[in-house]
């Protein structure tokens, strides 16, 4: 099968239509939902506050990418699959809330991940609805952590910051972030740019979509 080469890539899962976006986001057409995992906003500032210098520009670029997606899809809802904000409260939260307040027709929902340790009042003040995982929506269970055991619903999560290794002839190797769609669950790439990559080993019957050069490619 030749690689599908488009900026975004269309995918049908459980009868629902998705767009896989190279900015490491998923758009669920039926729900008009933009789904992001592991944004880790505020991470750079958290580091700086602890004496580890991370360039400010990194955060700005992530905001720009986020705003770009909101403008492109005009989603009815944005669903964060955990690790929205990196650690305890810092001023970066203000910048983030200012952005989302400009999109008042959009609903923002957070499925809580291990990094999401802010007080409930803070999310509330920003207008974010917080859900515990697994949060069931349509035929899916939306999570942060990948599920250890299969549930009735197909799970969509994050947490892993998944990536795969590609190999070519002549010992060529490439390490790229990916969307991973397994038999019982999917794992989204980490949206945040100051996050690492964790290599996953694709199981049989899984579909892997790598991101590179501003495109999404299905690989087998």
């Amino acid at each position, binding site marked *: 099968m030749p690689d599908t080469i488009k900026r975004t890539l269309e995918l049908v899962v459980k009868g629902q239509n998705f767009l896989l976006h190279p900015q490491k986001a998923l758009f669920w057409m039926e729900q008009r939902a933009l789904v992001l995992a592991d944004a880790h906003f505020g991470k750079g500032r958290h580091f700086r506050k602890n004496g580890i210098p991370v360039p400010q520009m990194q955060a700005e670029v992530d905001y720009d990418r986020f705003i770009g997606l909101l403008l492109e899809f005009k989603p009815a809802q944005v669903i964060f699959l955990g690790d929205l904000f990196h650690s305890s409260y810092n001023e970066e939260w203000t910048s983030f809330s200012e952005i989302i307040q400009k999109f008042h027709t959009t609903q923002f929902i957070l499925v809580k991940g291990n990094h999401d340790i802010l007080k409930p009042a803070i999310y509330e003040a920003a207008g974010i609805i917080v859900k515990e995982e697994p949060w069931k929506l349509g035929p899916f269970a939306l999570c942060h952590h990948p599920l250890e055991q299969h549930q009735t619903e197909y799970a969509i999560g994050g947490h892993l910051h998944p990536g795969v290794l590609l190999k070519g002839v002549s010992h060529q190797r490439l390490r790229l972030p990916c969307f991973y769609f397994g038999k019982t669950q999917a794992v989204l790439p980490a949206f945040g740019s100051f996050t*690492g990559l964790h290599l996953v080993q694709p199981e049989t019957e899984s579909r892997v979509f790598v991101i590179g050069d501003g495109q999404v490619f299905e690989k087998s």
Partner: protein
Amino acid sequence: MIEEALQWAEKKGWTPFEFQIKTWRRYFDGDSGMVNAPTGSGKTYALLLPILLEQKHLGGDGITAIWISPIKALTREIAASAEAGIADLEMRATVGLRTGDSTASQRAKQKKNPPHILITTPESLHLLLASKGYESFFSSLRTIVVDEWHELLGTKRGVQVELALSRLKHIQPRLRIWGISATIGNLKEAARILTGKESFTIVRASIEKKISVIPVLPSERERFPWAGHLGIKLIKSVIPIIQSGKSTLLFTNTRAQCEIWYRALLEEAPDLAGWMAMHHGSLSSEIRDWVEESLHEGTLKVVVCTSSLDLGVDFRPVETVIQIGSPKGIARFLQRAGRSGHQPGAISKIYFVPTHALELIEAAALRAAIVQEELEHRIPYVRSFDVLIQYLVTLAISDGFKSEELYREIKSTYSFESITPEEWGWVLDFITTGGSSLQAYDEYAKVSIDEKGVYRVDNKKVAMRHRLSIGTIVSDAVLQVKYLTGGWLGTIEEWFISQLKPGDTFWFAGRPLTLVRVKEMTVLVKRGGSKKGKIPAWLGGNLSLSSNLSIELRRQMSRLASQTFDGVELEALNPILEVQAYRSAVPKDEELLIEYFQDKEGFHLLFYPFEGRYVNEGLASLVGYRIGQQLPISFSIAMNDYGFELLSDLPLSFEEKDIRQWLSKDHLTRDLQLAVNATEMAKRKFRDIASIAGLVFKGYPGKPKKDKHLQSSAQLFFEVFSDYDSDHLLLLQAYEEVMIFQLQEERLRKALDRIGQQQLKITFPQKATPFSFPIVVDRLRESMSSEKLEDRIRKMKLLLEKD
């Protein structure tokens, strides 16, 4: 006092060596300098005795002498010698140890009652500079001795020593500084860097050791295989050597090789079980200490080790030394050979076991090199801003520092002699505001400046994290290996463990272990499992053949080509050279051999400059980059000490003039820099830099949970700085280190000069040749591409576990 020293020797029934007497004299004259003597020659007493005598006669409260040793194991030995000397001289003085093993109560006691003689390591000395009131702690200091300085000089720990000395010299301007060093090519420079003085003494011990190099060859009936790794294949010839000796050190070049040999010896000679042990830098200190003690007691028949046993105390029971594979340098080989034959006048025997057939030529090269005694230089690190940043925060934690005063001190060291006021300003910015790329100054918390202009750390958490990070000059992705039931075995790299699943077996510390689970930074294992488990490798373990040994290797090569080679290895080498000559060619002195062939892996282009792996890597990147400028192409690059390979999936057409252009010196610096940018070399160097400069916080046992939110990797920082702050001094340092230490730009330039004079001998073999084989099979490869990422992705497939 010199009389008393002589009397002491007489009483012990020793005849002092000339170099010892000379050192005593110079010491009492108040000189600083360097004692050049090998291990086991009485170098310790050359300096320890005058220190003790001076203490006996001049007295003095508090620390009067500091002895710095590169390894902990050695500090105990020195302390024991000092205690013995104190007893002999019937004097009152105290000796104290300060290492990573010192407990909190020992440290507190030492602070209250400082010993007269403090024995420590570079890292622990820096920790002392991180404690408040260190100036008065060191105010009685007269002397500093740095042991095994040759070993520290070419490392960042050497820079650590230089910086600590610059501070102590400020506290005590009349400080005497002495070093002890084995013979190296740049001994004078080494002495000048350490003492920081224009005039200094060098005392050379003229103890001649006869060394005999014995190649281990396969038995006559066996054909010498040229294809493949044959290290283990010679094990049957190695076992009798071990069995006939009293105690043997078997040196390997990498930790992985160490594990492989240990397992193979256990399989081949099961009766050695209980009599053999292993020693390498990733094993826990408990295991290493036990091995060292057993070596002293003579209860071990063989220890399989790496450079971790190059240094340090003399193991008297050791009679035999075996070297597996190329030792890569003449100095290192001599040091290892010197581990045997302790009786004066005894011949040190060292057996050389080649790991591939061509390495036999190196046996001959080593023999010739030993006669000429042309030892390598140790290239000192300069402008290591990571170490400087760590040091400044260290001082800011304790008593603080003032910019102008410290700038003068720093500039007096060799390492930072060339630092500019702008760079100094950058470093101060980095520790106070986080550096130029941060806009939000107010939030950054590390070092602050008080109203008197003193740089200090107020944040207790920052101070604690910093103390824990001093001395971690190691890469970031290291995991601890522990038994489920408790007991620490050592450390392993993350990339290796990530290939395993729970239940898989791997070999580590010479035993099969079953992976139970990985929890944060710990790999939990249980004993036992399959005998066939994977053996870990540690990245960055590959040394390069030194320039001196490369020259000698080329000389022996050309003798082979002109049939004037007369070493005992010739008979074993002949069949290989015949195959090489038949399939391709054996290059003469005035020829550069280039091979080009195709197989199912792709198109192989090989060059054989015989320049050592680092320079070969530099040449490979340069050629790869220049070809890539002419057409979109991806290469995977492999090299060894003899040559390098560029492998691609596209055919190349080239003529002699193309090759001349790829190897031209025009725009060399520019092209090299661009070539480095196209590879991951700088990213790898950045691992250490990020860790030392405190960017990457590795966590520590019992850490508060929230500290997990500060975990990251050097790679992330490399990327974020490359994207948003490409003039970052630490980033530039990574590139500079690649140029100086990896590609060795100066050597590379000379190599291109030499190649420019050579004729090109281009052959098109049908398949791999004896020369190309060891390179072609190497799987640890660098890659480089001028193709569009999109095109590369399209050509590739998912890497699945079964591959």
